[in-house]
C-alpha cells in the first residue's frame, strides 16, 4: 500500500508547504484586520476602469495620502461599468464602513439619471468636491476636419455619419457630445456615440480609425496633442484655459460649457463623528504638496468644497444635469 509508505519526513514537507501557502494568506489578511481604525487603511472605490480620469484622481489621492502618512494603506478598487452605477451600487452596500471612499463626479450624476439606476446619491454620503477638468473634442491628425466649425457643418448635415468615441453614458464626454449636437440644431438622438471605459480606450478608438471624433478629458490626450498625432478642436470650458492653445466650444457660437468635476463620497449610514473624520481627512489631503503637484500636472482646477457649500452645489448640479439629460431625451 502506498499510503503506508508516506513517511514522517514527507509529511513534514507537505505540512511545511501548506504552512507556506497559509503564510501567504495571512500576509494579505493582516492588512485587513485593522479595518476598524480609519486612518490606517482606506479602500478607494473607482467606479470606472483603470487609466481614466476617475482612476487618476484616486491614484493621485492614494499617493498624497500615503506620502504624508495620513493613511497607511490606500487600496484602489476599480469597479467599472453602467455609467458608474456598478461602483455606486457596491458603495451603497458598505453600510457604516468608515474606511471606504468612492470617487464621484459629473459622470455619476449623469449615469444615475440615464440608466434609471435604483441606487442614487441618497444611498451614499457625498463628502467633497476636489477638482474640475474639461472635455476636449478632438480628431486624428490626418482628418480633413481642421476646426470645430468645420466639424459642426458636417455633423449638422449628417449626424449619423460621424462616429464619436467617448466615456460611458452620462459622463461629461457623452453629455458634451449630445449637447453640442443639440445646440447645432440636430436631433441628439442621432448621435452615433460609442462607449469606452477610460481615456486610453477612447484614444485607441480614435487612432485606430474606429471613431472619427473623440470626446474625452483634455489631460488624457495631452501627449498625443503635443506630438501632433491628435488635433484638438475645442474644449468645454467657459473661457480659454491658461496655457492651453485650444479654443472653447463657446467661441464657435454654441451655448455650451461643461465642467467635469471630481469629488469623494463615503459609505451610507455613517455617524456624524465618522463623517467629520473623513471630511477632515479630505481637507488634509487637498492641503498636501503632493496633491497640489498633481493638480498642476493633470491640469485640474482646484475647486475644493465640502459641507453645506458642497451639498448646495450638488443639488444645483443634479438639477442642471437632469434638465440637460431630459432635454436631450436621454433619460
Amino acid at each position, binding site marked *: 500500500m*502506498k*499510503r503506508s509508505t*508516506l513517511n514522517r519526513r*514527507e*509529511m513534514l*514537507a*507537505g*505540512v511545511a*508547504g*501548506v504552512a507556506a*501557502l497559509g503564510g*501567504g*494568506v495571512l500576509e*494579505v*489578511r493582516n*492588512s*485587513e484586520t485593522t479595518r476598524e481604525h480609519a486612518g490606517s487603511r482606506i479602500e478607494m472605490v473607482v467606479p470606472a476602469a*483603470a*487609466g481614466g480620469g476617475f*482612476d487618476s484622481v484616486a*491614484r493621485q489621492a492614494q*499617493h498624497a495620502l*500615503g506620502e504624508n502618512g495620513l493613511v497607511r*494603506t*490606500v*487600496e*484602489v478598487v476599480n*469597479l*467599472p*461599468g*453602467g455609467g458608474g*452605477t*456598478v461602483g455606486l*451600487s457596491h458603495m451603497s*452596500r458598505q453600510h457604516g464602513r468608515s474606511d471606504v471612499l468612492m470617487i464621484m463626479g459629473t459622470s455619476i450624476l449623469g*449615469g444615475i439619471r*440615464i*440608466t434609471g*439606476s435604483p441606487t442614487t446619491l441618497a444611498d451614499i454620503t457625498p463628502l467633497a468636491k476636489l477638482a474640475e477638468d474639461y472635455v476636449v473634442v478632438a480628431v486624428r491628425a490626418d482628418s480633413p476636419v481642421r476646426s470645430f466649425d468645420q466639424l459642426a457643418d458636417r455633423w449638422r448635415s449628417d449626424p*449619423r455619419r460621424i*462616429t464619436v468615441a467617448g466615456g460611458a*453614458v*452620462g459622463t461629461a464626454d457623452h453629455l458634451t457630445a449630445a449637447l453640442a449636437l443639440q445646440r447645432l440644431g440636430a436631433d441628439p438622438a442621432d448621435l*452615433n456615440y460609442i*462607449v469606452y*471605459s477610460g481615456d*486610453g*480606450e477612447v*484614444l*485607441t*478608438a480614435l487612432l*485606430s*480609425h*474606429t*471613431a472619427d471624433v473623440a470626446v474625452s478629458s483634455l489631460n488624457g490626450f*495631452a*501627449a498625443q496633442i503635443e*506630438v501632433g*498625432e491628435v488635433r484638438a478642436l475645442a474644449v468645454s470650458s467657459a473661457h480659454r484655459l491658461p496655457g492651453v492653445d485650444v479654443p472653447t466650444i463657446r467661441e464657435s457660437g454654441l451655448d455650451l460649457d461643461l465642467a467635469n468635476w471630481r469629488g469623494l463620497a463615503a459609505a451610507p449610514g455613517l455617524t456624524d463623528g465618522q463623517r467629520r473624520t473623513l471630511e477632515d481627512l479630505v481637507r488634509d489631503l487637498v492641503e498636501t504638496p503632493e496633491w497640489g503637484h498633481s493638480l498642476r*500636472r493633470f491640469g485640474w482646477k482646484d475647486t475644493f468644497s465640502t459641507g453645506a457649500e458642497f451639498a448646495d452645489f450638488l443639488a444645483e448640479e443634479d438639477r442642471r444635469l437632469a434638465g440637460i439629460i431630459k432635454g436631450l431625451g436621454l433619460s
Partner: protein
Amino acid sequence: MDSLSLLLSGFADALTPANLMWCLAGVVLGTAVGVLPGLGSSMAVALLLPLTFLLEPTAAFIMFAGIYYGGQFGGATTSILLNTPGQSSSIVTAFEGHAMARSGRASQALAAAVVGSFVGGIVATTVVAFFAQRMVAFALGFGPAEYFALAMLAFVSTAAVVTASPLRGIVALGIGIAISVVGIDDQSGAVRMTLGVSHLLDGIGIVVVTVGLLAVGEVLYQGFRPDGGAPVQAIATGTPWLSRGDLRRSWLPWMRGTALGLPFGVIPAGGAEIPTFLSYGVEKALARRRGNSEFGRGAIEGVAGPEAANNATTATAMIPLLGLGLPTSATAAVMLAAFQQYGMQPGPLLFENEGDLVWALLASMFLGTVLLLLINLPFAPLWARLLRLPRRHLYAGLLVFATVGVYSTKGSIFDVGLLYAVGALGLFMRRYDVPVAPVLIGVILGPLAEGELRRAMAAGQGDLTVLVDSGIAVGIYAILAVVAAAFAVKRIRERAERSPSRKAEVGSG
C-alpha cells in the same frame, strides 16, 4: 546597433547588488501573493505598489518586474497543484497541469511552466526592446470588428474543437456566456439577469466562477465518489526535473506558445487569456494528429505552451503601455500609475523624454525573468511534495483556501455562497461529462465579444458588413474556417473508422 547599446546601458544601471536584492525580494513576495486564488500578478503588483515608492525609480521598477513575474508563477503553481488558478491567464495551465500533478508529475509540470514563462518572457522582452516603436502601428490596426473576430476564433477553436463532444462544448460555452451577462451592462447601464438580487449588480466574478468550477467542483466530485478517501497516487520517483523526453516534448510548445502570445500583448484589450486558450487548442490538436495524445491525462505540452503564451503576452503588453500610454491589462494600469508617480507620462514622447528609465525598466524585465527561473526551478520539487498529503487533508485545506481567497477579494459572504453554488454546478458537469473549460472561456471572452460586436455595429450604423471590412478580420475568419473544416473532416473520418466504440475522452479537470 543603437537600441542594443541603449539596452546595455540600461543593464549597467540595473545590475547592482542592491537592485538584485530588490528583484529577489519582489519575486518572493510576488510568488507569495500569487498563490492565493483570486490574487494574481496584477493584484500582487497593486498590493505591493506602495512598497516600491520608497525606492528610487530604477530599483522600484526592478522590484516591480520581480513581483510581477513572481505573481505569474504563483498563479501557475496553484493551478497545477490545487487546480485553483490564481488568475484568469493561468486557468488553462490547470487543465493539464493538475492532471499531471495527480499522476505524480507535479514537479515536471511546474518546471515546464517556469521554463515556459522564461522562454516567453525573454523572447517577448527582446521584441519589446527592439521593435516597440514599430509594433505600435500594428496595435492600431485592431478595431471592434477585429476583436470580435478574435473572440469568435477563440470560442470555436476551444469550445467546439478542443472538447470531445462539440455539442457539450457549445452547451458549456453557453452557460459561460450566460453567467457573464449577469449584472449592469457596461454600455447601456441596463440591469440584466440579476433576478432582483442586488449583490448580482456587479456581476459574477471570474474568480468565483473559476475557483468554484475547478477547485470546489473537483473536491465535491471526489468527495461523492465511492473511493473518495483513496490515497494519493504513486508519486513518481526518479528525476524531479524535466527528463530528456519531457524537454523534447516541451520545446516546440514553448516556441509555439511564445509566437502565439507575442502579438496579443500588443493589441489593446487583447489580454493574456485568448493566446493561452489558443495555445492549448493548438497543442491538443497537434497531439491528436500525432496519435499519442495524453491530453486529459496530463500532457506536458498543455502546460508548456499556454504558460509561454501567457508570459509572452504580458511582456509585450509593455508596447502599448510605453508607446501609447495605453494600459492593456490591470497590471499595466497599475504600472501606468507607477510611471505617473515618478512624473513620467507614457506615450509617444516617453522614449525621447525618459529614455534612461525606460531602458533600465526593459533591462530589469530581463533580470526579473532570469531570476524567476533561477529561484523557482529548485522549488518545483519542493512545492510538488504538497501533494503527498493524504487526499482528504489536502482537499479540506483546499476548500479553506478557496473560501478565504474568494472572501478576501471583495469581503462578501454572498460571493462565498455563490462559490459553492458554482461548485455544485461543477460537480454535476463532471458527473455528466460536460467539459468545464468552455464555461470559463465564455465567462472571460463573452463580455469582450458582446461589447465589441455592439461597438462594431454602432460604428457601422447597423451594417453587418463592417465585421468583414478589414483584411485582419477576414484573415482571422479564414483561419477559423480552416480550423473548423479540418476538424470536421477529421471527425467524419474517425467516425467512419470506429463507429461503434467511440472512445469517450475525459474532459478537462
